[in-house]
């Protein structure tokens, strides 16, 4: 089994590795040491590592060279003479070798992550012991380079292609006007009810898009739902308040709400103040939103996006003012709080399905159907993998075991 060690190590690891080197002081003293110039020990010379080879590390962005070797015959375990291996590097074949790293005994590979792409390097590896190191064995020249494609992840391309095909297929079907069925999602059915209640009570609707930026898909999903809610508040002439904790979310939110008010035919009701920035600070934002809740007393509160520790504080305050609350997030640690304190909760995938569900847009529904097709494929593979693995374990059949392993590897991240 290969033990790969990169240049980056924890301080503890560095201490251990330096101890593993156990070089005589003169050799360990400084750079520019020539590994072949060490004096012969009094005992039987230490056998050097064999088969030293260096090659460009594959499937990476460059700047990395892998060095491998076979153990020294004297590396016979914890009680063997070899205490470690020392790797040297030079840009010249016969001189200028500098110590690159020290590794414990038993190691047969390491990765030099400090290589510069396009530069030729020569490496030498020697076994070390408290007495004297072995002769160094060389490899090279070798150059590092980056690869455009990570071939180890071809399986991901295939899986992504299947998913994309399914999504595109159903989007086309939706665009052609095919009737696409989506089951009832009660949390989303409540959106109309909540906005209607706020309208009847003459109180505002509060929308919280989470505390993450626009590079989080949950915030993006929250924004698409905001568009639907804003269209309803514009139609019913209900006040909408969207406090945000990120400047980019504020810009996006304003565009979203403005567009929704335009589509509802009520651009006159739109104001930039509907979406307003508070602070990036998590609990500063929560303190302000809690203040808004108890002072404005919104009749409906929507929490749709990525949430962290603030979820329960917000939902409890909303509960205390008697607002109807609809929450949705894909944060597994915060979902329990929303489930406990809100009237309706969109769990994970339901949040992403919401925009298609609310808008009834055929193309978005097609996208949702495509995702469902992906889930169906996942279930089939899981059941097939479980069946094959169980049969292989029960019968000991090698072919089935091989097939099961192939299936698992197809879904492995390399």
């Amino acid at each position, binding site marked *: 089994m290969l033990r790969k060690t990169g240049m980056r190590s924890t301080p503890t690891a560095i201490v251990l590795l330096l101890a593993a080197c156990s070089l005589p002081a003169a050799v360990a003293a400084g750079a520019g040491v020539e590994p072949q110039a060490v004096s012969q020990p009094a005992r039987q010379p230490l056998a050097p590592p064999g088969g030293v080879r260096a090659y460009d590390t594959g499937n990476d962005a460059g700047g990395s060279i892998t060095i491998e070797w076979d153990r020294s015959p004297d590396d016979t375990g914890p009680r063997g003479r070899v205490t470690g291996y020392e790797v040297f590097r030079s840009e010249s074949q016969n001189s200028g070798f500098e110590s690159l790293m020290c590794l414990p005994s038993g190691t047969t590979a390491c990765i030099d992550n400090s290589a510069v792409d396009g530069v030729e390097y020569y490496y030498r590896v020697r076994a070390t012991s408290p007495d004297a190191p072995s002769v160094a064995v060389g490899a090279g020249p070798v150059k590092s380079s980056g690869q455009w494609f990570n071939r180890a992840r071809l399986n991901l391309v295939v899986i992504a292609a299947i998913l994309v095909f399914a999504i595109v297929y159903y989007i086309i079907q939706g665009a052609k006007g095919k009737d696409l069925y989506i089951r009832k999602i009660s949390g989303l059915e409540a959106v109309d009810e909540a906005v209607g209640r706020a309208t009847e009570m003459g109180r505002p609707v509060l929308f919280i898009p989470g505390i993450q930026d626009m590079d989080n898909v949950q915030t993006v999903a929250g924004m698409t739902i905001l568009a639907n809610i804003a269209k309803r508040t514009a139609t019913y002439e209900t006040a909408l308040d969207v406090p945000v904790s990120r400047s980019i979310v504020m810009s996006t939110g304003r565009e979203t709400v403005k567009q929704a008010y335009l589509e509802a035919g009520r651009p006159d009701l739109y104001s930039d103040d509907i979406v307003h920035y508070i602070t990036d600070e998590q609990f*500063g934002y929560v*303190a302000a939103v809690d203040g808004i809740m108890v002072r404005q007393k919104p009749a409906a509160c929507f929490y749709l996006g990525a949430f962290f520790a603030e979820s329960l504080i917000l939902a409890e305050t909303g509960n205390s003012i008697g607002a109807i609350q609809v929450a949705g997030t894909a944060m597994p640690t915060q979902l*329990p709080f929303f489930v406990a304190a809100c009237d309706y909760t969109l769990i994970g*995938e339901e949040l992403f399905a919401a925009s298609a569900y609310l808008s009834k847009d055929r193309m978005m529904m097609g996208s949702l159907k495509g995702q*469902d097709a992906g889930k169906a494929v996942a279930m089939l593979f899981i059941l097939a993998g479980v069946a094959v693995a169980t049969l292989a374990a029960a019968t000991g059949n090698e072919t089935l075991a091989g097939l099961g392993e192939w299936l698992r590897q197809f879904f492995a991240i390399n």
Partner: protein
Amino acid sequence: MEDTPILASPLAQTISLWIAALLTLMIFSFLYKDNPAYKFAEHLFVGVSAAYWMTVGFWTTLIPNLMAKLFPSRMGTIFPVAVGNRAEYFYIVPLVFGILLLTRLYSRLAWLSRWAMAFIIGFAAGTNFTRYLQSDFVTQIHSTMIPLYEPTGNIMTAVGRIFSNLVVVIGVVCALIYFYFSKPHEGSFGKAARVGIWVLMAAFGASFGYTVMARVSLLTGRMSFLITWVQSIF
């Protein structure tokens, strides 16, 4: 005589302790009802933190990630690490996008900001696609492909393992069925979806208890601070 930094002096530490304790009490006063003390603490918190994050954003993002890349030789004492580096002119692209975002301030050019926003959202969608495909989809399938039966010497171990693996497989498949939107939750499909939501609720319950314990420890920490403050008075 040795100079003591003003903020490290006993008087300054006493004042900061009092400020922290009073602000904590002001925030806690919200548990009773909204009041002027809470409003003061809230506005102070929001104002200070907004200004703080703007400054942090300027010094940790704009300076090192933009200005130091475009004008490394002019960083001088502002960001000395960059001095001597070569200018990386492709950073003009994010600079242009940043300026486009600011066009919102001028209504006639505000539409230009949509380009930057479209880029941000498109980038987020694209990069997250592969990320979530790996972490939430592929890894989940890989981890669930487990044998329901594994021959072992100990009967109790075998039974325990079968039960554990069954829970994993049934839990994952039923939860997936719950999130399948293209079919009504009726009949056996509906029953499987019901099992799925039970699995989710059981997981949420465990998570709830775990997180509440963490929150209680936070409260304990704050109470401990207040006790220290009260003790310092007497």
